[in-house]
């Protein structure tokens, strides 16, 4: 069954625009990069794909884009099975890892050749928007090999948007950018999403995902760990994160409190789901039991949730 990241209340009958179904990828004999991964993305969502290095995020995206052949399972775009060179890819713009171009050609020439290689007429490309995003000034007519990493990345984003894509797939798009450029990319993704495009966004920067994404898919060791809205994953509803010197003793104390619904391990601390009550009551109970309280935060950040999910596996 497909693990949808759509909000339960949002148009449940809608056709997912991206479907990853039972996807697996073996490299060589022993390396299982993606392991029976299933999730889907609905129209208009901004989905963050999270996972530690080697989790299989990029492999998953490359399979979605027809670059890597799945060992098992399939990927679908707009309901159609994706194969290398699939026509559905025209409706999608992708930036996988770093931007790359033909180094001995200018930025403009690169964009044009790339566009025309797909059979497009240059007059039909959204060149003005793309060049405004690239914001390279006269440098757009210089050879790409003279560009900085940030300039290449901006030109890469411009290329992605030439065809006004319905889906944006961005794999670590802020890699190599300075803080100002990273903010510009985030704003760009927001603008694209507000215009109705769906965004699948992979990043190591969890704060970035938290700021941009409506939903998230968490992967580890090639497997799906969790999927849902970012707020659900963070668990803002009455969740308190506690770090103490003796987790087991703290768990026994907290589970005995009437205001506590549930206590979960979330390394290195505990996630306490409360049903009313005050945080100060928790602290008082722990201190009274002789347990040293090191951290109490009323709301987890995505980073905490992510680490809890991944380390809890």
């Amino acid at each position: 069954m497909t693990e949808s990241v759509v909000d339960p209340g949002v148009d449940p009958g809608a056709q997912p625009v991206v479907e990853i179904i039972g996807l697996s990828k073996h490299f060589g004999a022993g390396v299982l990069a993606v392991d029976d991964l299933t999730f889907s993305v609905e129209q208009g969502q901004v989905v963050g794909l999270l996972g530690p290095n080697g989790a299989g995020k990029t492999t998953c995206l490359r399979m979605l884009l027809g670059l890597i052949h799945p060992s098992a399972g399939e990927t679908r775009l707009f309901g159609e099975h994706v194969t290398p060179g699939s026509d559905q890819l025209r409706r999608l713009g992708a930036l996988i890892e770093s931007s790359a171009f033909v180094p001995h050609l200018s930025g403009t020439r690169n964009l044009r050749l790339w566009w025309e290689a797909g059979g497009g007429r240059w007059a039909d490309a959204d060149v003005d928007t793309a060049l405004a995003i690239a914001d390279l000034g006269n440098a757009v007519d210089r050879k790409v090999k003279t560009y900085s990493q940030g300039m290449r990345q901006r030109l890469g984003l411009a290329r992605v948007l030439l065809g006004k894509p319905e889906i944006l797939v961005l794999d670590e798009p802020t890699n190599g950018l300075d803080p100002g450029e990273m903010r510009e990319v985030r704003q760009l993704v927001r603008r694209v999403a507000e215009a109705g495009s769906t965004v699948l966004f992979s990043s190591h920067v969890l704060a970035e995902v938290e700021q941009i994404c409506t939903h998230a898919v968490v992967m580890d060791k090639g497997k799906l760990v969790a999927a849902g809205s970012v707020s659900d994953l963070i668990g803002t509803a009455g969740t308190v994160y506690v770090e103490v010197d003796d987790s087991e003793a703290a768990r026994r104390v907290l589970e005995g409190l009437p205001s506590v619904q549930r206590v979960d391990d979330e390394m290195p601390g505990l996630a306490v789901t409360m049903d009313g009550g005050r945080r100060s009551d928790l602290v008082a109970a722990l201190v009274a039991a002789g347990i040293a309280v090191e951290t109490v935060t009323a709301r987890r950040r995505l980073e905490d949730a992510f680490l809890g999910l991944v380390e809890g596996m």
Partner: protein
Amino acid sequence: MLTVAVLRTELVKSLRRTRTYVAFGILALIPIIMAVAINLNPPDARGEGRLLYLASQTGLLLPGFALRVTSAFMLVIVVALFGGDAIAGEASWGNLRYLLMRPVGRGRLVFSKFVVAVFCAWVAVLIVVITALVVGSIVFGTAAIGPPLSLLTGGQSNGDILYHLLVSTVYVSWSLTGVVAFSFMVSCMTDAPFGAIFAGVGLYFTSLILDAISSLGNIRYVLPTHYFDRWVDLLTRGEWSADMWRGVLLQLAYVLLFFLVGLWWFRRKDIKS
């Protein structure tokens, strides 16, 4: 129409690349150096090779000598460069994945890149011939070879020599297409362009070495380089050889084999670069 679009973009990439012109420039320089050297130090009719001696007598045969010399080494490297860099070069830039995501079909991309590599290789051969013809005509003139030297050239008129030069140029170009195809095949399998280029050059020299081992017997007849030089008698004596047709057919088999293996491999390849 899509194939034409990809062909055009691939051609632009190659023709706007400095390395293409450096390679062409070096190839154009070789006949000029040859003409100057032969003019300054004319070969002896008795002690030197026949083709070299004839090249010093008429500018129309300098292209033949230039073709013979360059096709033994320099042209091999240049055509292996065009074939080996075609796919692996794009992969090493990281741009291959963006072309495939555009999307450009893998078969269409392989076909277009191969055609452009072969085109550049043939242009390289043509540059050697045209430069040698122009420089040879200026330095040695174009007077018809009369007796007794005409005995060496089989009594060919200037028109015959030019026609046979055209045939020889096509034959050498086609023979080198096998080297292009092999480099291209390896280029489809690797992301390291230098590996693919060296593979093409390696194939040529390995085949030459094996061809020199007479104890290999009939195996030598299917080596890619076995019929490489069969055009020389046509140009210098006006003698057609059935071996030239064998050479054409052998290369056809190799070109098809290498291209199809490259295509098959690339269609199944995971693009990780």
